[in-house]
C-alpha cells in the first residue's frame, strides 16, 4: 500500500464500506453493515459497551477476522482480498496486556516485524534502539530484559514500540491500556498523544472507557449493539449534544466537567488582566480548565494566576470568569453540534433523493 506523506502525516486513510460479520452458528450479525471513513493521521476512537462488536470491527481491518460482507480500503487500496499475512505486516497491532512473547527479550519482541519484512541486521538493531527511546525506555537497560521482568506499564510501552517498529501507516490498538492502573494509564495516554503529534499515523483505538475516548480521540465513534454507529463526531460535539439517550447514557454524568479537560487555559477568552491583587495559586497556560477549576476552588481568595512559559503572569482567573467562559464554550459546542447534525441530516436526505 502506498505510504501517504503530506504535511508530516505518515498515516493512510481507512475506509470501511458496509462491513458485516456474522459468526458461524449465530443468526444475528455481530457487526451489522458499518461504514466509516477515517482520515489519514487521525486518531479515531471506537467506544461502546462490551458486546458492541468494536473489537470485531478492529480485527476485520487487519483481517484477523474475515468479514462476511463489505470492503476495507487502506490508502484507497482494497485490502479485503489480499494476502492477510502481508497485510498485517504493514499494520501495527497493539493489544491489551501488551501481547508480548514471554520467551523473547524486549529487543527480540520489537525486532519481529522488521525482521519478517526483511530488514538487515544493522537496520533492525538501530530501529529497536530508536523505538525504545521513542516510548521512553532506556535501550541499554531494557534491551535484554524479558517481558515478565517489566511492570505492566513498561510492557505496554514495549507493545506499542513493537507495533510501530516497521513504521506502519496504520496502527490498530485494542484496549491497549485496559489492564494497567489508572495512574499508569493516564501517563500512557499522554505518551500516546505525544507520539501521535510526532508520527501522525492513522490510529484506530478501541476502548470501553468513554473518558479515555474523550482524552485521546480526534473523533469518536460511539457504537451500540451490533456495531451500529450511535454517533460519530468530535469529543466536544458528543459531549455538547449526545445524539440520543444511548449516547448520553454512555457519556455519563458530568459532561460539562469532562468538557473542561478538552480546553486549555491558554484558549480561554476573558482571562482578566492582572490587577495586582495578591494571588496564591498559579497555573501554566497549558493547564486544562479542570486544573483551573481545581486551583480556583482551593485558593483561599478563589483566584489563580495564569503564567506563561517563563513564569510571567498573563492574567488571573476566578470563579466568575471561569463560569462565564465555560457557559460560552458549552453554548458554542451546542450550536456547532446542532449545525453538524442538521448538515448530516441534509446530506442523508440528499443521498436518499
Amino acid at each position, binding site marked *: 500500500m502506498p505510504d501517504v506523506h503530506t504535511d508530516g502525516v505518515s498515516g493512510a486513510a481507512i475506509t470501511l464500506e458496509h462491513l458485516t460479520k456474522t459468526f458461524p452458528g449465530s443468526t444475528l450479525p455481530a457487526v451489522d453493515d458499518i461504514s466509516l471513513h477515517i482520515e489519514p493521521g487521525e486518531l479515531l476512537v471506537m467506544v461502546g459497551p462490551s458486546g458492541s462488536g468494536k473489537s470485531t470491527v478492529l480485527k476485520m481491518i487487519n483481517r484477523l477476522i474475515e468479514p462476511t460482507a463489505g470492503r476495507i480500503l487502506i490508502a484507497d487500496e482494497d485490502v479485503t482480498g489480499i494476502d492477510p499475512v502481508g497485510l498485517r505486516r504493514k499494520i501495527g497491532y497493539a493489544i491489551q496486556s501488551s501481547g*508480548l512473547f514471554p520467551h523473547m527479550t524486549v529487543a527480540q519482541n520489537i525486532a519481529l516485524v522488521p525482521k519478517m519484512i526483511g530488514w538487515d541486521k544493522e537496520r533492525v538493531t538501530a530501529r529497536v534502539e530508536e523505538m525504545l527511546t521513542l516510548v521512553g525506555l532506556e535501550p541499554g537497560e531494557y534491551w535484554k530484559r524479558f517481558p515478565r521482568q517489566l511492570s505492566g506499564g513498561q510492557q505496554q510501552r514495549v507493545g506499542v514500540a513493537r507495533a510501530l517498529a516497521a513504521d506502519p501507516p496504520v496502527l490498530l490498538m485494542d484496549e491497549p491500556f485496559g489492564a494497567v492502573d489508572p495512574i499508569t494509564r493516564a501517563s500512557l495516554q499522554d505518551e500516546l498523544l505525544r507520539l501521535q503529534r510526532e508520527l501522525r499515523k492513522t490510529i484506530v483505538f478501541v476502548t470501553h472507557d468513554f473518558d479515555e475516548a474523550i482524552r485521546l480521540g480526534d473523533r469518536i465513534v460511539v457504537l451500540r449493539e451490533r456495531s451500529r454507529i450511535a454517533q460519530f463526531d468530535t469529543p466536544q460535539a458528543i459531549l455538547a449534544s449526545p445524539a440520543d439517550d444511548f449516547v448520553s447514557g454512555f457519556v455519563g454524568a458530568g459532561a460539562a466537567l469532562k468538557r473542561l479537560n478538552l480546553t486549555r487555559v491558554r484558549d480561554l477568552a476573558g482571562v482578566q488582566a492582572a490587577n495586582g491583587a495578591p494571588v496564591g495559586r498559579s497555573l501554566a497556560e497549558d493547564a486544562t480548565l479542570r486544573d483551573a477549576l481545581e486551583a480556583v476552588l482551593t485558593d483561599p481568595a478563589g483566584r489563580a494566576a495564569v503564567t506563561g512559559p517563563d513564569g510571567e503572569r498573563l492574567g488571573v482567573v476566578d470563579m466568575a470568569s471561569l463560569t462565564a467562559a465555560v457557559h460560552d464554550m458549552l453554548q458554542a459546542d451546542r450550536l456547532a453540534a446542532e449545525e453538524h447534525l442538521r448538515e448530516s441530516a441534509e446530506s442523508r436526505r440528499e443521498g436518499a433523493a
Partner: protein
Amino acid sequence: MSGVPGGGENPRPVGVLEDEAAVEERLPGPGARRITWRKLVFMPAVLAFVLLVTWLWYEGTDLDSVSRNSLAGGNMWIRLREHIWLTAVSTFFVLIIAIPLGILLSRPRFRRVQPVAMAVANVGQASPSIGILALLVIWVGVGMKAAVVGMTIYALLPVLANTIAGLRTIDPTLIEAARGIGMSQRGVLRKVELPLAVPLILAGVRTALVLNVGTATLAFFVGGGGLGDLITSGITNHRMPVLILGSVLTVTLALFVDWLASLAELLLRPQGLEVSR
C-alpha cells in the same frame, strides 16, 4: 499482582506504581541462572555411593557356579548396554512419533480427532506392558524389534498428552497477537507455540524415558535382552547376588536418566518463562 499474560484484568491499586526496585530483584543473575551447584552434584554422588556399596558387597560375597555362570563373559556389561540401547531407541521413536502427532492434533483442522487419538494412546498406556509385548511377539516375532515396538507404544502417551497440553495451555491472546503482527501459521507455531510448549513437552519426555528404563526390564521375556536377564535368572535360580545386581543397576540407571533429563529440562526451557512477577 498476577502478571500472567491475559491475567492482568485487575488493575493495581492506585498509588502502587511501577515498582522498579522489586522488578530489579527478579532479574536472574548471569551465568548461574538455572542449574544450581547442588542439583549438579547431589544425585550423581548418591548414585555413585549406591554403586560403590553394591560393588563392595558383591566383592565380599562367595559366588557359586550358578551365579558365576549368570554373569560369565561380561554378561552384566552386555545386558546394561542392551538396556541403554533399548531405552534410547524406543525413546527416539516415541519423540519422532508423539511430538509431530501432538502438534498435528492441536491444529484446528484435526482438533476433533484429538479425543480419539488420546483414547488410543491411553489404551497403549493402560494395558499391561507385558501383555503388549506378548502380543507383539505374535506379530513381529521374538527379538529386540518386538521390545522396541512395545516400549514405544507404551511410552507414547505421556509425550503425546504433554505436547497437546503444552500447546493448548498457551494464552490464546498471544497466538492472536502473533497472527496480528503478521506471522504466518508456521511462523506462529515455530516462534511462539513450540517454544512456549517446550517445558511441558520436556516433562513428558522425561516421564517417557523413566518409563522406558523400567519397561526395558521386560524386554528379556520377548528375547530383547537388557537387565531383565539378570533379574530373571536371579529369581529363577534363587541367586540373590544376581537379582540384586540387576535390580540395583536398573534403579540406578532410571535415576541417572531422570537426572540427565532434569538437566535437559532446565537447559532447553526458553529463557524468560521462569521469571514471574
